[in-house]
C-alpha cells in the first residue's frame, strides 16, 4: 500500500516538472530556412519570408507579428517599392492535377500530378491588395521614381534556375501599375537586363541584348514599344548592355541615354528626341558611370585604367583626369563625387568637385569594400577589408583587421580616419540626428552595434541580444538588426535615443502546418 501511494504521489508530480527542461530525445531537420534574414524593411514593419513554413509574416517595431494572408501561397521573392510601403512578392502554390475531392493535402497528391502556379502579390499594410499574373521566372524588378510602376523581367545575370513550364517568352517585360494591379506585357527584346525610366515618367528604356527598346507609359500608345535602338547591325554579333544612365535637360525632359556595353570601350549615346545613335569611343571599358546634375556632365571610371573621364552633354567630348590608381565605383551627387575601387587592392579614394574640377586624393588604410555618403554629403564612410600584412609597422597592424574609413568631403577636409574593427563588418548604415552624422556598424560574431560619431571619430556600443547578421534602415529612422536565430529574432533600434525593442519567435509561425492544396476548386 505504501508503495502504491508512493507511486501515485510520483505520478501526481509529473505535470509540475520543470517546464524548460525540454525532453529532447528525438532528432529532426528542416529542408529550408525557418526564416530568410534578407528582410524587407517597410514603413509598416519588417516583412520576413518563412521558407520552411511557406509563410510571410510582418513584424512590427512593437514586437508583434502576424501572418500575411497569401491565400495559401508561399512567397518566393520579394522587393520593396520606392514608396517604402508596397511590397511586391512573387508567390507560388502547389496545384494537384487530380480532381479527386478527397485530396486535400500536398502529400496526398501523387508527384506526377503536382504542379505549381504563381502570381505577383502586391502587399500593402500587411494585406494583399492586388494579385497580378506575372511569370514566376521573372526575377528582377525596376521601379519608376514615383514608385507607381514596376517592371518585372528576367535577369539572366542573376544566375537563377529557370523552370520552363509550357512555353516561356524571354523577350517580354511586364509593366505593373502598382495602384491598380493592371499588368501589361511588352515585347522588348531578348534577355532584358536593365530598365530605366525617364524623368517625366512618360517612357521606359529597356536594355536587352543588342538593343534598347523605348516603351511608352502614357497616352494613346501606352504600354507599346515605340522605338527600338539597335546596338549592332550584325545579327551574329552579341552586344550586352552593362550600365546606363539617363540625361535630362533643364526642363526635365530626358534627352539622352548613355549605355555602356560589356567588354567594349564605347558608350552608346541614344538621342531620345531625334531618335539617333552616336558612339563615343573611350580608352577603356567603363566600370561605372554617373550623371552630375550640377554641371550636366557624366563621369566615367575604368577598372583597368587610372583615369576619370568627364563627358559633356552637347557633343559628348571627353575630358580626362589622371588618377594614380584605377577606380571602379563612383558615389555621390550634386557636384561632389567620391571615386573608389571595390574590386582590387587599390587604396586610393578620390574626391572630385565637378564645378571646380578639383581632384583630391585620399588614402584608405586598407582596400575598400563598401562606401556610402552621409545624407549631409559631409562625409564618406567606407568599410575596409583585411589584406596581407606587410611589415611590422602600423600599416602591417592595420592590414590584419577590417576597418572603417571616415573621409571628410568638406571644403577643407581633415585627414581620413581609419578605425579598426573587431570583426568582419556584416552591415553598416548611416544616420543623423540632425546635428551629427553617425555610422552604425555590425560585426560578425560581435553582439554589439557600434554607433560611431563620424566627425568625432568616437564610438558608442549598443548591446544587442545576440550577434547580428545584417542591418536595414526603416523609413522612419529606425534600424532593424537581424540575428541568426532559427526561431526568428530582430531588433529595432532607434539610433537617436539608442533604445531597442526586440521581436522574437516569429520564425516558428506555421512550422506545424501540414501543407494543404490551396485554392482548390473541386466539383463534388
Amino acid at each position, binding site marked *: 500500500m505504501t508503495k*502504491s501511494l508512493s*507511486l*501515485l504521489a510520483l*505520478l501526481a508530480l*509529473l*505535470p509540475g*516538472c520543470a*517546464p*524548460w*527542461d*525540454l*525532453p*529532447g*530525445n*528525438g*532528432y*529532426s*531537420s*528542416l*529542408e*529550408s*530556412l*525557418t526564416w*530568410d*534574414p534578407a528582410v524587407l524593411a517597410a514603413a509598416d514593419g519588417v516583412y520576413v519570408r518563412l521558407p*520552411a*513554413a511557406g509563410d510571410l509574416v510582418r513584424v512590427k517595431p512593437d514586437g508583434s507579428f502576424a*501572418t500575411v494572408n497569401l491565400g495559401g501561397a508561399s512567397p518566393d521573392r520579394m522587393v520593396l517599392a520606392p514608396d517604402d510601403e508596397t511590397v511586391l512578392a512573387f508567390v507560388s502554390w502547389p496545384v494537384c492535377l487530380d480532381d479527386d475531392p478527397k485530396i486535400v493535402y500536398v*502529400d496526398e497528391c501523387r508527384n506526377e500530378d503536382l504542379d505549381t502556379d504563381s502570381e505577383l502579390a502586391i502587399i500593402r499594410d500587411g494585406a494583399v491588395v492586388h494579385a497580378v499574373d506575372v511569370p514566376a521566372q521573372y526575377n528582377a524588378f525596376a521601379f519608376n521614381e514615383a514608385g507607381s510602376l514596376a517592371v518585372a523581367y528576367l535577369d539572366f545575370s542573376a544566375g537563377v534556375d529557370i523552370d520552363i513550364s509550357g512555353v516561356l517568352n524571354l523577350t517580354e517585360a511586364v509593366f505593373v501599375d502598382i495602384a491598380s494591379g493592371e499588368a501589361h506585357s511588352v515585347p522588348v527584346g531578348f534577355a532584358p537586363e536593365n530598365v530605366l525610366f525617364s524623368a517625366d515618367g512618360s517612357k521606359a528604356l529597356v536594355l536587352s541584348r543588342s538593343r534598347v527598346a523605348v516603351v511608352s507609359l502614357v497616352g494613346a500608345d501606352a504600354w507599346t514599344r515605340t522605338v527600338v535602338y539597335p546596338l549592332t547591325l550584325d545579327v551574329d554579333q552579341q552586344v550586352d548592355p552593362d550600365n546606363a544612365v539617363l540625361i535630362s535637360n533643364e526642363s526635365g525632359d530626358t534627352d539622352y541615354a548613355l549605355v555602356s556595353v560589356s567588354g567594349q570601350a564605347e558608350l552608346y549615346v541614344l538621342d531620345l528626341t531625334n531618335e539617333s545613335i552616336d558612339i563615343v569611343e573611350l580608352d577603356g571599358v567603363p566600370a561605372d558611370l554617373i550623371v552630375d546634375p550640377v554641371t550636366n556632365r557624366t563621369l566615367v571610371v575604368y577598372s583597368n585604367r587610372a583615369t576619370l573621364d568627364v563627358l559633356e552633354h552637347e557633343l559628348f567630348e571627353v575630358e580626362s583626369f589622371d588618377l594614380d590608381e584605377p577606380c571602379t565605383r563612383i558615389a555621390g551627387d550634386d557636384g561632389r563625387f567620391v571615386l573608389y575601387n571595390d574590386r582590387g587592392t587599390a587604396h586610393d579614394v578620390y574626391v572630385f568637385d565637378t564645378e571646380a574640377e578639383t581632384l583630391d586624393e585620399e588614402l584608405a588604410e586598407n582596400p575598400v569594400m563598401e562606401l556610402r555618403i552621409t545624407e549631409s554629403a559631409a562625409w564618406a564612410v567606407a568599410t575596409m577589408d583585411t589584406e596581407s600584412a606587410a611589415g611590422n609597422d602600423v600599416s602591417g597592424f592595420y592590414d590584419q583587421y577590417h576597418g572603417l574609413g571616415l573621409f571628410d568631403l568638406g571644403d577643407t577636409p581633415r585627414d581620413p580616419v581609419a578605425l579598426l574593427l573587431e570583426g568582419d563588418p556584416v552591415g553598416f548604415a548611416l544616420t543623423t540626428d540632425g546635428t551629427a552624422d553617425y555610422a552604425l556598424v555590425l560585426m560578425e560574431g560581435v553582439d554589439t552595434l557600434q554607433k560611431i560619431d563620424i566627425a568625432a571619430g568616437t564610438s558608442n556600443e549598443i548591446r544587442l*541580444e545576440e550577434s547580428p*547578421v545584417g542591418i536595414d534602415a526603416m523609413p522612419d529612422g529606425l534600424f532593424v538588426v537581424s540575428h*541568426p*536565430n*532559427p*526561431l*526568428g*529574432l530582430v531588433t529595432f533600434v532607434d539610433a537617436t535615443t539608442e533604445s531597442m525593442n*526586440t521581436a*522574437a*519567435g516569429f520564425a*516558428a*509561425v*506555421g*512550422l*506545424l*502546418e*501540414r501543407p494543404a492544396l490551396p485554392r482548390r476548386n473541386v466539383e463534388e
Partner: protein
Amino acid sequence: MLSLLCALALPAAAATNELSFEVGWLGAPDPAWDLFSNDNALGSVGLRAGFAVHPNVAIIAGWQHAANGATVDVPGAEDETYDEEDYYGGGSSFETALYTDQFSVGSKADVKVFKWLHPYVTAQLVGMRGLARLDDDSGDDENLTQVQRAGLTGGFLAGGGLDFIIKVRGKVAIAPYVELGYGWMAPLALKDLGTVQFSGFAGRTGVGVRF
C-alpha cells in the same frame, strides 16, 4: 455505449473497481509530429480508475501524460559547406517539446471467461491539452526566443483488451492488462504554430488493483 450493450448481452459477471497504472500509445501520422519525435506514435504514461456499475460494466476514467521533444536542425542561410567546427557548417538548430495530457472517460464491459482472464471492450471520450515549446537555447531560461503555444482538442478511443486477474486476497486482485484499439483526436491547434493530429492505432497496457 458499445461496451454497455455488450455487457448486457453477456451472462457472466466480471466488472470490479480498479485503479491502474498504465502506459499508452496513440498513432501520430501527422508530419508535424516529426518535429517532436522520431516515433510514429504518441507514447504516454498515466493512471486509470474504474468504478463498477454493473456486474459487467464499469465506468472508467483515465489520464495520460506525454512529453516528447527533438532537436531540429536548420540549414544555413548560404549553401552548406562542411565546417570542421560545426558539422552542419553554417546551420543552426532549435529544440522542440510537446507536452500532452489526455483525460478520458468512458465505459468498459468485460466478461469472465476464466477466473483469471477477463476480456473486455471499452469506449472512451478523450480530451487532450497540448503545450508546445520551441527554444533555441534551452539552457538559458531568459533567452528571448522561447516560443510556447497551448491548445485543446478532443476525440475518442475504442478498443478491446484482456484483463489478467491474479487473486491476492478476497476480492483484491492484481490485474495486468493489455488493450488495443483505435483512437482519433481532432487536430490540436497550437495557435500560429499550426496543428498536430493524433489518430490511428491506440493501445494501453498496465497493471492495476482490482477491488
